[in-house]
């Protein structure tokens, strides 16, 4: 298994009800696989999964990206700084 850290921001954090969690996932899981897992583990997040931005170790990640060992995964809506 692969222990990863998930960080939630903005609307995603509000829906998750927490800023971060640690999670064990299968080795070589893709971002798409992770999104599917989160949709079933956290039903509140399900509706966010189509528009959520995902990052792996602080770089933007995409559905076919493989989640590396001990990755730091960020999840958030499109940014709105400035």
């Amino acid at each position, binding site marked *: 298994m692969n222990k990863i850290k998930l960080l939630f921001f903005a609307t995603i954090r509000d829906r998750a009800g927490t800023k971060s969690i640690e999670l064990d996932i299968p080795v070589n899981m893709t971002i798409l696989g992770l999104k599917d897992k989160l949709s079933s583990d956290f039903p509140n997040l399900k509706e966010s999964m189509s528009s959520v931005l995902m*990052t792996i170790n*602080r770089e*933007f990640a995409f559905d076919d990206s493989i989640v590396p060992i001990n990755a730091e995964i*960020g999840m*958030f*809506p499109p940014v*709105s*700084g*400035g």
Partner: protein
Amino acid sequence: MQPSNLPTIFSITESEIDLNELLAQITQTSTGAAAIFAGMVRGVTSRDNPHETEYLEYEAYVPMAEEKMKQVADEIRERWPVIEGIAIVQRIGKLYPKTPTVLIACTAAHRDTGVFDAARYGIDRLKEIVPVWKKEFGPAGQEWVEGDYIPKPGE
């Protein structure tokens, strides 16, 4: 190749943005021109969805935001090699109308070298790829402001 001593500042801060200090930090002996963009909290918005704002609460994914600010600075230097200094600052926390919340400043020897375009590019890119969000508090309640940019692989 970029000389490595060109000043580049990027920070996420909860403190007041000091334009005088930041300008001084990105002014070299060869610098004659600075273009600076500053963004402020609007208390009254007329365009699109007219509304009033009591305050905004900003949050950031701080370490990633700093890395992406560095990326924005790198992109600016790649497009406008004459740029000498760059400062990119995002203030976070609870911020009231008229308060400066973000600053992008670019310096160069002369004003006709793209320094305005570079600053404009910087603020546009910050609002696309730097992970910062704001929640708006007003008479109608509270609401997260969401952007609409979806980064592409490699961004």
